[in-house]
């Protein structure tokens, strides 16, 4: 019987910069406050990220770690990857080429994607759970 929580995929906007952070944090905070959150930040749309965005990522990973969860990054474009490398934040995260790879990485099983609310996809990485065979 699996007790794994579903993986939450949060697509980030084009700009993760000062001025956009507050609104973004309002969306993200409820996800971080869950027990053992399992989150993937989808970077595929992110073109610009600055030090405020990097600070936000650090805050998020700290919060997730505090709750014994995990936060992974996926589909990071080169422009963002350079900033993450420059600020050494890349070493705080597991970074995957695709969102699916990131989701799969949580336990190595093949999940079925699903969308439960606007802007946020909840994907279970536990096949049994998705098929309704879990608890």
């Amino acid at each position, binding site marked *: 019987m699996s007790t794994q929580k579903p993986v939450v995929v949060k697509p980030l906007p084009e700009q993760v910069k000062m001025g956009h952070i507050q609104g973004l944090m309002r969306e993200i905070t409820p996800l971080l406050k869950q027990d053992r959150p399992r989150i993937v930040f989808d970077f595929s749309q992110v073109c610009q990220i*600055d*030090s*405020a965005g*990097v*600070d936000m990522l*650090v*805050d998020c990973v700290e919060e997730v770690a505090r709750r014994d969860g995990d936060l992974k990054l996926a589909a990071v474009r*080169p*422009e963002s*990857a*350079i*900033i993450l*490398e*420059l*600020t*050494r934040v890349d070493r705080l995260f597991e970074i995957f080429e695709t969102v699916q790879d990131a989701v799969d990485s949580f336990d190595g099983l093949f999940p079925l994607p699903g969308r439960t609310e606007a802007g946020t996809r909840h994907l279970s990485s536990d096949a049994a759970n998705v098929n309704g065979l879990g608890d």
Partner: protein
Amino acid sequence: MLVSAILLVGPNAAAGDRDSGVSDSHESLGGDPIACIEVLGQTLLQRSVSRLQRDGVRDIAVLADHSLSTLIRSQHTRSTDMVLVNDPMDLWPAAQRKFAEYVENGVDSVVLMRLGAFVEFDLGCLLQFHREQGQPITPVYDGTGPLDYWVLSASCDWSEVSTGRAGAKMSDASSGIRFRTDGYVNRLANAHDLRHLVVDSFLGRCEIRPNGVQVKPGIWVDKGAQVHRRARIVAPAYIGRGVKVRSDALITRWSSLERGCEVSYGTVVEDSSILVDTRLGTGLDVTHAVVWGRNLVNLRHDVALEINDPKLLSGRTDIRRQLVYPTVPSPVESKVPEQPDLNEGASGLRGTIHDAKPALVPSRRNAWAD
């Protein structure tokens, strides 16, 4: 034999086409010609002028369009004649006028150079080859194509050289007998080439040597550089004039910090060139990059970025603006331990300097010796 030289600088100097014999390349970084960018303490323009003077060329004219006036003036020496043209398209006609002036003054040959590629050739051999061939124009080529260097005889009638959109074409030259150089050539087409030039200079593959004093094998430090005692410099590296390297910074693997740069607390610079007056923020990892002001070219990802965040990168103008309008430190900044002061008044290098590890640069130490 009286020889003069005309040096054309700037992207507008390259306006060739398929038939012109002038390469259609625009060697620039952030709009500035690479020839005007300091590499290991001196611009390639200055190095080319010094080289010509060493080879006995008496009169040297540097021609550029007006947009480059600040850059060119900052490098102007009394021994060179600077000509600025208002309309970029006038660059080649201005070269023609200068050529005519030199011929009137009794010059036998004129070396015409469009400063795109960095080329080291034996001028004596080139002039001898030119005389022996008896042709009005001798173009210089390497294995891959034209280098936009020519020798023109005084007898050369420039007006007979067909004119094109750049003001002049070297079509006659390209069809003539070419002088093929086997000297060092770097086409400086992009940031990758700029980095190659720095590495080649450290390795002694070309004649360029870093300015300043070699304080340890492979480590050059220029005047007024300040390195914190807790910073580390690992050979080969170049610390330019007036550079400040703050505490716990690391400069390593063929990196060069050009004049007036500042590397903040804990930042690592590895296999990178930091160009004039650039400030790197706190705790960064600058690797495989060329950085100038807010611009960064990452050579591994092959991506150029403009980073408008003074906490990461800034040029001198940004630093001045910060002094007038101080910014509130971010939460991350406040977590960073207090930054110790530099050893003000340090006459040279105070930081820890490490020789190159043998595994990193085997048997290259002799190449770094003066």
